[in-house]
């Protein structure tokens, strides 16, 4: 542990150097250095590191490390879930999509939100009653430990790594634009901080980082939306009419295309072109959410099923409110940002700093330099919080599923398990930094879609079938999960997003952008088929265990429960 502490402090000391150096460099080049943003960001980092220090002193058992001791309340967990879910990509991405395309942005928001009620009705309390630290606890409840844990850990790690790369690349680009920091230093700072939060503060620190970030982001976004509506005297008719008028004179390429094509910005546009794509995308958004390991893990931090249910209720409220805000911010940017030459690169026909800067410019348009600084710092904090949640989920899959259960058969010294988890967080963090730097110039937007598709095609089918279907056997789960994984990756690689846009081939071999409709169906079907065909003694024993599992699942009797603090 001492080596890890020494390493961390060295990394920590090192991470400030590029920041200060960048500050100097930006000044020397006469670049605009946003001091408010930097001061606010330093404050956020100082507070969260303080929390990490406090959390480290309270993190002793595996239950503390993975589940914050099980003592998080429903309301706190609801905020933390919202914090995990409202990434910088969704804040900047959705508001920018609304800004550039109009109504289409809302279609994505709705897809991301409707997964939540499903999680509540079918999974939240079941997760709490059957699991302890990872979703593999539930899948392997009555199925064979070693292969199922390995497969679930694989599903977790692949989802986490893809999601992490997308976040890291986004972070680097965003921070370079906002703070004038070099890309590599930005990625390193994000990576080092997330390693510190996770390795030292475990779930307790990660949870509080999420809560603080959620409050900051919701407050900031509320102010931007209020500023936009205030501009038109809170008259919605006038608000949307001004947006429509403003688009006609806009010098942005996206807006020109809308006007030239005589498109309706208040109706679905060309984003979703055919029914198969629409349904496939809908499935990936909805069921992918229900299979994201860092989200599922949050249900183990509360003390019982009651609190688990409340968490989803609050989370759905916060996330839904947030999506409505991003919609207002997007149209607000059409009103306030598009006509202002200060924010527009008229030559390129994009926004200054790139097209996903709509919300950032809106902060400046509604609240000036000080508020821009605040929102920039919040965007940075948002990235940090999301990557920390992901890293913790990945580290837990390595230490709890692979090491403690698959390798050691469940008999393991808690302190050793935590140590493995901390080192795993370090390794995952280093991999994320490395890949984040490698992928700088790549278009990585598809990785988030891929992460959702994989979560929907492996993690989700395994979970839902193991909870609800008596007939599921180890063999069925393995074949189904594995085929789901292979099918998802193959279809994404052969689709336009990778085959054409990344690999530079002429035409895609798989016609749809989202594979979820096919890969998820295949996973469910093969889980069913190969379980049905499984007549082994082991399969019989596994089916016989279902009733006992159901009792615990329904009543919580025997659940790893009561708060230890």
């Amino acid at each position: 542990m001492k080596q890890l502490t020494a390493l961390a402090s060295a990394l920590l000391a090192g991470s400030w150097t590029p920041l200060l150096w960048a500050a100097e460099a930006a000044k020397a080049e006469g670049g605009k250095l946003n001091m408010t943003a930097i001061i606010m960001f330093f404050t956020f980092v100082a507070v969260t590191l303080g929390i990490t220090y406090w959390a480290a002193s309270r993190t002793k058992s595996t239950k503390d490390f993975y589940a914050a001791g099980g003592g998080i309340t429903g309301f706190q967990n609801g905020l933390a879930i919202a914090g995990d879910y409202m990434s910088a990509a969704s804040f900047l991405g959705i508001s920018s999509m609304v800004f550039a395309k109009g109504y289409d942005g809302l279609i994505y928001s709705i897809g991301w939100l409707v997964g939540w009620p499903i999680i509540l009705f079918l999974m939240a309390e079941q997760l709490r009653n059957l699991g302890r630290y990872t979703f593999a606890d539930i899948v392997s409840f009555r199925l064979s430990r070693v292969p199922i844990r390995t497969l679930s850990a694989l599903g977790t790690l692949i989802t986490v790594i893809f999601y992490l790369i997308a976040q890291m690349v986004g972070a680097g680009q965003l921070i370079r634009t906002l703070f004038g920091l070099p890309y590599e230093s930005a990625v390193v700072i994000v990576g080092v901080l997330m390693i510190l939060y996770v390795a030292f503060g475990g779930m307790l620190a990660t949870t509080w980082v999420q809560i603080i970030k959620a409050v900051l982001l919701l407050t900031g976004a509320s102010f931007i939306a209020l500023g936009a509506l205030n501009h038109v005297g809170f008259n919605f008719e006038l608000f949307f009419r001004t947006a429509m008028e403003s688009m006609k004179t806009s010098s942005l390429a996206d807006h020109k295309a809308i006007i030239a094509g005589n498109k309706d910005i208040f109706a679905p546009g060309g984003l979703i072109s055919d029914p198969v794509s629409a349904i496939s995308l809908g499935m990936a958004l909805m069921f992918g959410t229900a299979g994201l390991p860092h989200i599922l893990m949050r249900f183990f931090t509360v003390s019982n099923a009651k609190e688990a249910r409340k968490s989803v209720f609050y989370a759905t409220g916060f996330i839904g409110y947030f999506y409505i805000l991003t919609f207002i911010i997007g149209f607000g940017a059409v009103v306030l940002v598009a006509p202002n030459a200060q924010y527009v690169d008229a030559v390129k026909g994009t926004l200054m700093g790139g097209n996903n800067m709509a919300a950032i410019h809106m902060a400046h348009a509604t609240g000036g330099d000080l508020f821009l600084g605040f929102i920039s710092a919040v965007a940075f904090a948002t990235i940090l919080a999301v990557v920390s949640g992901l890293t913790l989920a990945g580290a837990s899959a390595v230490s709890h599923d692979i090491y403690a259960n698959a390798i050691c058969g469940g008999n393991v010294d808690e302190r050793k398990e935590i140590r493995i988890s901390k080192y795993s967080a370090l390794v995952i963090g280093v991999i994320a930094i490395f890949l984040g730097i490698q992928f700088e110039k790549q278009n990585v937007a598809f990785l988030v879609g891929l992460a959702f598709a994989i979560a929907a095609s492996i993690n989700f089918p395994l979970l839902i079938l193991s909870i609800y279907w008596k007939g599921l056997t180890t063999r069925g789960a393995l074949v189904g999960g594995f085929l789901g994984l292979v099918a998802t990756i193959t279809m994404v690689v052969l689709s336009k997003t990778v085959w054409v846009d990344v690999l530079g081939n002429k035409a895609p071999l798989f016609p749809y952008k989202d594979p979820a409709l096919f890969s998820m169906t295949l996973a469910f079907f093969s889980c069913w088929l190969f379980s049905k065909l499984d007549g082994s003694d082991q399969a019989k024993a596994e089916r016989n265990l279902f009733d006992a599992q159901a009792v615990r699942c329904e009543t919580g009797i025997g659940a790893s429960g009561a708060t230890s603090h």
Partner: protein
Amino acid sequence: MNNDPQDAKLIERIQKNPKYTELVTKRSSFAWKLSITVLIIYYSFILVVAFAPKFLGTKIMEGSVISIGIPIGAGIILSAFLLTGIYVRRANSEFDDLTQQIKEETK
């Protein structure tokens, strides 16, 4: 798991308790009904987006620029929140009370 004979007996007692059957039936039918409601709302919306996008562009009234797609979208978000509220309200009172009774009766 569950090799403990003590556990096996407890599980058998719970399964024989009529309140357990009641809990399972009520809770799962309620949960599936609500899930199907969400799926119907959402996939109806997606199918309209795919097959009749123009419909969502219909104006809410003569002379307005606001399309019905905007209140419908906001309504779906609100309905998701309300449905979670409805489930939590019933589950945290009725279902949890029933669970508590089962626990006490089968101690």
